């Protein structure tokens, strides 16, 4: 069914249209979320939140941008919120442990293995994801959308509501930061 018709039907509360929208875009939303969160369960939770928001606020979607761009925006924003919440919890647990209330043990994050990575690159990709996790938010978003979702700089600029030159700059800085981080990491773990 045509994207526009599906959206119009969803605006009228058509459940079949909503089901089709979820099934069509679930991999895109999940893949973006897993790239940012580096955790499959968290990514599922975020994907669920994204589609709940789509259902609740589709009437506000004016078709000025592409539906996929709107979906990417919601996904990125939800994933970042989730990440911030998680960091806050981690900080709180750390402070509690300082005061002796260490009921919750702080578990070191295991290496993340993206399910879609080619087997030969598994270890290297896990290391790269570790590096991506150290990047500032904007660089992380730009890099993830480009490398995991294959979006062009133009498309990323629409998702991030910024200029193409800003995206170019973000990607350049992200690559430089990753190169520095990887060099240091490899030197220390030789």
């Amino acid at each position, binding site marked *: 069914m045509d994207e526009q018709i599906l959206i119009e039907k969803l605006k009228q509360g058509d459940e079949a249209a909503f089901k089709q929208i*979820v099934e069509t875009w*679930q991999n895109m939303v999940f893949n973006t979320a*897993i790239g940012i969160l580096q955790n499959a369960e968290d990514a599922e939770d975020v994907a669920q939140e994204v*589609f709940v928001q789509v259902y609740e606020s589709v009437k506000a979607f004016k078709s000025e941008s592409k539906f996929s761009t709107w979906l990417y925006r919601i996904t990125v924003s939800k994933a970042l919120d989730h990440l911030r919440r998680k960091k806050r919890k981690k900080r709180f647990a750390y402070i509690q442990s300082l005061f002796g209330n260490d009921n919750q043990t702080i578990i070191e994050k295991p290496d993340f293995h*993206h*399910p879609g990575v080619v087997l030969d690159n598994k270890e*290297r*990709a896990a*290391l790269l994801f570790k590096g991506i996790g150290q990047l500032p938010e904007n660089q992380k978003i730009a890099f993830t959308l480009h*490398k995991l979702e294959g979006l062009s700089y133009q498309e990323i600029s629409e998702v991030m509501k910024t200029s193409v030159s800003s995206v170019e700059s973000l990607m350049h800085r992200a690559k430089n930061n990753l190169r520095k981080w990887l060099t240091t990491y490899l030197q220390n773990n030789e």
Partner: protein
Amino acid sequence: MKNKKHMEQEVDKTLNSLEGLQRAAPTPFLFTRVKASLENDEKSRWTLALAFISRPSVAFATILITLFVNAIIFFEFRSESAQASGEGEQLFANEYNLANNNIYDSTIEPE
């Protein structure tokens, strides 16, 4: 020198390790989960509304506001009805010439 070159190669390989990556897919039944979440949201909205209404402070404030509005309406109605009944009495007195209760006001017709 060789080591540095090797390191650079390794960094480049790592940076390119996401080439050929396939999209990750969620577990099946995401739609069922989303639907359940939407239904729970609906229920939790009602639960929240009920919890808010049944708060002692909210309930007490509602009772006070109701009493206050009732009092205003009661006193407004009372003053209006008092005024209205006063006017009626005056009309009645005028109609039957009962208003002259002063002896000096009454005229005595000479014989």
